[in-house]
C-alpha cells in the first residue's frame, strides 16, 4: 500500500521536476549570450552574478580519435605544451631560444632514426643522445619555468587545468571577475603563438602520467587492453595518453602540424560563466580572438568501424583481484538510438534501485560494485555500451557474467516497467538542474554540448527528448545492440600460487 502511495506521489513530483526544468531553460535563455566571430570561433557567455568570479572553458573539438597513425597521444602532448608559454612568455630571450628549440628537435629526430633501427649502433646512439642533451641544456637556459601558470596563480586563478579525451580537449580555470582581460590576453596568445619549449622533458612527465594511470593500475591496464581488442579500425582503440613508442616517436614538428590543423577558430568553442558583462565580453573577444586567422576547417575523421565478425574475449592473469568488463558496440550521440541507450544504462546502473545494482550488490551480494555507461571511450563517434563489475570475495567471474547476461536478457524481453523509465528520466533531469548552480559546471556543460551538437540549448532539449523514449524503444535498442557477435569481454583473473608450473606444462 505504501509503495503505491509513494508511486503516486512520485508521479506528482515528476510533474514538479518537469516544471522546474522548463523554467530553468527560460531563465537561462535570458542569461545566455551567444556569438560567433568572423573567423568562426563561437563564444557562449552565461551571466551569473552570485559572486564576483568567472570561469572559462576553451573547448577544442579535437581528441585522441583525431590523431594521425603512429602519433597516438599527440593531442594530449599538445595539451601539455599549451602551458609552456609563448614567444614573450616563459622565455628570457626568444630570438636566441627559437633556433635552439629547432636544433633540439632536429637532434632528437636524428637520435630517433638510429634508435628505431633493429640493429642500431650503440655508440652512435649514445653520441646522438649526448648532442641532443647538450642542445637541450642550452635551450633550457632561456626558459622561465611555468611562467604562464605562475602569473595566473599569482593573480588568484583557481582550478587551472586541462583535459584530453577521445573526443575533445579542454582548457579551464577561474579568475576573480575584475581580471577577465587577463584571461583574454593569455588565452588568445596561448593558441595564437604557442612555443614548444621543454618539449622532451615534458614527454618524461607524460610517461610518468602513463605509468600512473595505466601501467601501474590494474583497471587502467584492463581498459587499455579492452579498447585495443574491441575496435579494429576506429581510433577509439588507442589510449588517450598514447602508446609508449608513439610518445617516443612524436617530435615538435608533428605536434606543431597537429596544432596547425586542428586548433583553428571554427574548431573551438569558448564558454564564460560568472559575473561578467556580455557586451564587454564580446568586445574583448573580437579584440583578442578576432586575431586568429580563419582557416580551413579541421580535417574530419572518416574511419568507420567495420562490423564485428564474432565475440572478442580475453583474460589478463595477474596478482590483483578480479574485474569483469564487457562492452557492446553502439552508436554516436547524434544517432536516434542514443537517448534510449542512455536511459537503458540508467535503468541498469544508476542509483540503488537500478537493476544490476539491486540484484548484484544489494540482494545477491555478489559484487562490490557494478556500473556502466553508453558512449565509451567517446560519443562523437560510435562507441561502446560498457558494463563492469568488481566481484566480491569467492564469487566467480562466470557467475558475474551470467548474471549480467540474465539481466540484459530481461531488458531484451521487454521486462522493464514504466515506473523505472519515469524514475530514470526524473534522475537525469534532477542531476542537470543540480549541475546548473556552479560556474565551472556550466562552462563544461554548455561548451561541450555546443561543440558537439552545434547548440548549447540541447543541454535542455536533450532532456525533453528523453520524454519521447518509450518502453518499446528500450526493448528495441537492447535487441539491436546487445548480442554476442557485437561484444567484447575482458577480465582480470587473479593468478594463484602454483599457476606458474601448471601453465608451463599446458
Amino acid at each position, binding site marked *: 500500500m505504501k509503495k503505491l502511495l509513494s508511486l503516486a506521489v512520485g508521479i506528482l*513530483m515528476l510533474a*514538479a521536476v518537469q516544471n522546474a526544468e522548463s523554467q530553468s531553460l527560460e531563465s537561462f535563455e535570458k542569461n545566455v549570450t551567444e556569438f560567433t566571430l568572423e573567423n568562426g570561433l563561437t563564444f557562449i557567455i552565461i551571466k551569473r552574478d552570485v559572486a564576483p568570479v568567472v570561469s572559462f572553458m576553451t573547448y577544442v573539438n579535437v581528441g585522441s580519435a583525431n590523431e594521425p597513425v603512429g602519433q597516438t597521444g599527440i593531442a594530449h602532448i599538445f595539451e601539455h605544451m599549451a602551458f609552456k608559454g609563448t614567444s614573450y612568455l616563459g622565455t628570457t630571450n626568444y630570438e636566441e631560444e627559437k633556433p635552439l628549440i629547432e636544433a633540439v628537435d632536429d637532434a632528437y629526430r636524428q637520435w630517433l632514426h638510429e634508435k628505431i633501427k633493429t640493429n642500431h649502433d650503440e655508440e652512435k646512439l649514445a653520441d646522438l643522445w649526448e648532442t641532443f642533451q647538450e642542445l637541450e641544456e642550452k635551450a633550457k637556459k632561456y626558459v622561465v619555468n611555468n611562467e604562464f601558470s605562475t602569473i595566473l596563480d599569482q593573480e*588568484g586563478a583557481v582550478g587551472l587545468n586541462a583535459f584530453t579525451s577521445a573526443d575533445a580537449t579542454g582548457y579551464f580555470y577561474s579568475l576573480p571577475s575584475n581580471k577577465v582581460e587577463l584571461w583574454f*590576453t593569455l588565452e588568445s596568445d596561448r593558441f595564437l603563438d604557442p612555443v614548444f619549449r621543454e618539449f622532451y622533458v615534458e614527454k618524461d612527465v607524460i610517461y*610518468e602520467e602513463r605509468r600512473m594511470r595505466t601501467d*601501474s593500475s590494474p583497471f587502467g591496464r584492463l581498459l587499455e587492453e579492452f579498447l585495443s581488442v574491441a575496435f579494429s579500425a576506429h581510433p577509439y582503440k588507442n589510449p588517450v595518453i598514447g602508446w609508449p613508442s608513439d610518445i617516443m616517436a612524436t617530435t615538435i614538428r608533428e605536434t606543431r602540424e597537429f596544432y596547425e590543423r586542428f586548433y583553428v577558430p571554427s574548431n573551438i568553442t569558448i564558454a564564460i560563466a560568472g559575473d561578467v558583462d556580455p557586451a564587454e565580453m564580446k568586445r574583448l573577444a573580437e579584440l583578442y580572438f578576432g586575431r586568429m586567422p580563419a582557416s580551413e576547417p579541421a580535417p574530419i575523421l572518416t574511419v568507420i568501424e567495420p562490423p564485428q565478425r564474432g565475440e572478442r574475449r580475453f583474460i589478463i592473469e595477474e596478482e590483483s583481484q578480479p574485474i569483469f568488463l564487457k562492452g557492446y558496440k553502439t552508436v554516436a550521440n547524434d544517432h536516434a538510438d542514443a537517448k534510449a541507450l542512455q536511459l537503458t544504462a540508467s535503468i541498469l546502473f544508476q542509483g540503488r534501485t537500478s537493476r544490476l545494482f539491486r540484484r548484484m550488490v544489494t540482494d545477491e551480494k555478489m559484487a562490490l560494485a557494478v556500473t556502466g555507461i553508453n558512449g565509451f571511450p567517446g560519443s562523437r563517434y560510435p562507441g561502446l555500451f560498457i558494463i563492469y563489475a568488481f566481484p566480491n570475495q569467492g564469487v566467480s567471474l562466470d557467475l558475474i557474467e551470467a548474471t549480467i547476461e540474465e539481466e540484459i536478457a530481461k531488458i531484451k524481453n521487454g521486462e522493464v516497467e514504466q515506473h523505472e523509465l519515469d524514475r530514470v528520466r526524473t534522475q537525469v533531469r534532477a542531476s542537470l538542474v543540480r549541475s546548473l*548552480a556552479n560556474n565551472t559546471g556550466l562552462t563544461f556543460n554548455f561548451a561541450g554540448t555546443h561543440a558537439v551538437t552545434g547548440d548549447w540549448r540541447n543541454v535542455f532539449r536533450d532532456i525533453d527528448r528523453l520524454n519521447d523514449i518509450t518502453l518499446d524503444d528500450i526493448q528495441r535498442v537492447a535487441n539491436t545492440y546487445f548480442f554476442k557477435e557485437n561484444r567484447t569481454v575482458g577480465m582480470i583473473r587473479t593468478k594463484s600460487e602454483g599457476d606458474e608450473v*601448471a601453465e608451463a606444462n599446458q
Partner: protein
Amino acid sequence: MKMRNLIITLLLFVCASASIMGQTRYNELTFPDLRSFDLPNVESFDLKNGIKVFLVEDNELPLINMTVLVRAGSFMESGDKVGLAGMTGTVMRTGGTETYPGDELNELLEARAASIETGFGMASGSAFMGVLKEDFDDLLPVFKDVMLNPAFPQDKIDLVKTQNRSAISRRNDNPGPIAAREFNKLIYGEGTVYARYTEYEHIDNITREDMIDFHAKAYNGANLMIAVIGDFRTRDMKRKIERTFTDIPRGTKRELDFPPVDYSFDISVNFVNKTDVNQSNIRIGHIGGRRANPDYAALQVMNQILSGGFSGRLLQEVRTNLGYAYSVGGSYISNIHYDGVFFITLSTASENTASAIEASLNEVVRLQNEPVTEEELAATKDRMLNSIVFRYDSKNKILNEQVSNTYNGLPMDAFDRYIDEVRKVTVADIQRVAREYIQPENVHILVVGNGNEIGDQLERLGEVNSIDITIPRPGQQRTEAAGDKAKGAEWLGKMASAIIPESAEINSLTIQSEIAMQTPMGAMNIRSTTVYEYPGTILQELNTPQGLINMEFRDGSGTMRMGQMSQPLPAQQADQMKRSLNQDYVNIARNRNNQTAEYLGMHEIEGKELVKIHIGPDADITFYIDPENGLPFASKVSNFNPATGGDTDTYTFYENWTLSDGVNVAYKIVNKQDGEIASTITTNSHSAE
C-alpha cells in the same frame, strides 16, 4: 563598478600603444577593484535540546539541502572493532527504519530524485538530505526517522560486512592506497587511532548490538548541528526545524579528545615490493603540527612555496625541470584535533626512485639553508590573497565555514585572522619555521614499487626495511592459541636432534626428487633438483614436459627462467618461496634456537598418537611429531586464500626417513588439501654440506 571597469579598459586601450591592435599583454594590464558583494546572512540559533542550527536562503534553484553534523566518529571505536563507525553509518541508510525499510526508502527517494545519506568519518559523522523544495515537507519526517530510528536489519549488516571484506581483499591492488596506508602507520604507529585499518577479524567481531550502541552514543541533541541551505524562507524553516527536532533527547556533549600522538624523530627507509608496477609511489616525511600553533600562517605560506599550484618549488624542480614525476606535492599539515604530518608525495619511474627522493628532499633543505627572495614571498602571498574571493563564491561555502568553525571550536573570524597573519609573514619567518618544524635529515621514507626494477637504489638512502603487506587472515592471532612454551622447546629440540642427529653443521642440502601432482590439466610428473643454501636461498630445477624451468630465490626476491625467457618471480610466488624456506624442517632444525615453539597437546592422526607443536612466528607451521623417534609424522600449514576470504589447510605427511650426510630426509612426502592428495614427492637421493 562596471562604469569604472569600462573607463579603465578604455584608458588601457588608449595607453597600450605598444600593441598596435589594442591588445594588452599581461604585464601591462591594470585591474579595477573587485566588486564588493554582500555575504549572505547565516541565521543561527540553538534548539532547547542543544542542537545548533544554521540557515542560509539560496533561491537560485528550487532545491533544499539539509546537513546534520554529528559529533562522533571512528576515533570512538575500540581497537578490535575498527570499521564499526563506518559500517554503522552505512547500515543506517541501507537498512532504513521499521517504517521505511532501506529498499523502500530507495524507491521513495529515487522516484523524487531526492537523496538521503548517512556516514561517519574519523572526527565527525553526518546525515544529508537533498530534495526539490516541493518534497521537503514530505521527506523531512523520513529523514528524521532514518537519523533516529535505524532498524539495522541483519541482511544489510551482512551486506556491509561482505562489502568490507571485499574491500580488504582489494586493498593491495593499487600502489597509491598502499603508500598512504603504510606511511600513516610509520608516522602514527600501527594500531593507533590515526593508523588503524579494518581487518577481517574486526569485521567478524562487530555485532548488531555494537551498531545500535554506537548510533545511540552519536545521535543526541547535544552532539548535533543542523545546516540548511536552499530555496526557503528562514522564518518558515526555523519553525519546521523547531517542530521536528526539538524532541530529540539532549544527551551529553562529547568532547573531541583525541589521544596524544607518540612520536619521536627517527630515520628509516621502507620498501613495499609490488612487482606489477613500473613506477615507485613515494612518501617522505615525519610528524606535523596543530592548527593552534602560532606559526600556523607562516607554515601555510611555506607550504605554498614548497608546493602551491604550478608555482611550488617541488613541481617546478621535480616535474618541470627534471621530468621525474607527473604528480608531486608536499605539505606540513596542521590539524585541529591531533598532530598532522609533514610529507612529500610523488610517483616516479622505477629507475629514478632514489634520485627523485634526493631531489625532493633537496627542495626542503633549500628552504632551510637559503632565505626565500622577497619576490618569491610576495608572489606566494599574492597567490593566497588574490584567490580569497573563491573561498566565498557560493553561499554554501560560507555556510560550511561557519558550521565547521563552530564544530571545531574556532572563532567565527578564524579565517580573517589567518589572512591578517599571512600578510605579516616575513622572509625570516619562512626560514625560521622551515628550520624549526622540518627535519629533512630525520624522515621516514616509504617506497611502494617494483623491487626487480628498482634494484639496490634504496640502499644509498639507508638501511632498507621491507614491509610485508600480506593481508592478515581472520583469526590468525587466535589459531594455535598459546600453548606450553617450555614443553614446546623441549619437543622442538627432540625433533631437531632427530633430523640432524649428530648436530652436524648443515649449510646446504641438495635433493633429487620426482614430483607427481594433480593439476587442472590432469596428473603430471616432474623431475626436480632442489638446492637449499641456508639461510636465504633456494635453487630449483624442474624438468617439465615443456622443458627445463629454473627458479632462483635469493634474499627475498627471485627469478624464473625457461629457455631463453627469464622473468622476475611475482611477489606472491616470491613470498611462497620465502615461506617454504621458513617452513623447511631442516632449516628449522638448524635454527632451533631462534624459533618459538608451543606445545599444543597430543593429537591423533591415522590412529597414531602424536605430539602437536606450533613453530612461529616466521615459520607458522604445526608439526605432529612421532614420539617414538622424534621425527615429524605430519605438518599443517594454513594459507589464506584471498578469493574465498578463508584459510586453506595443507597437510603434509612424511614417510621413508633416510639418513645421509648427517641429515634425515623424508623420501616420501604426500601433500593433502581438503582430504585429497594434491601432490606426492618421491626423493631418490640427497646430499648435504
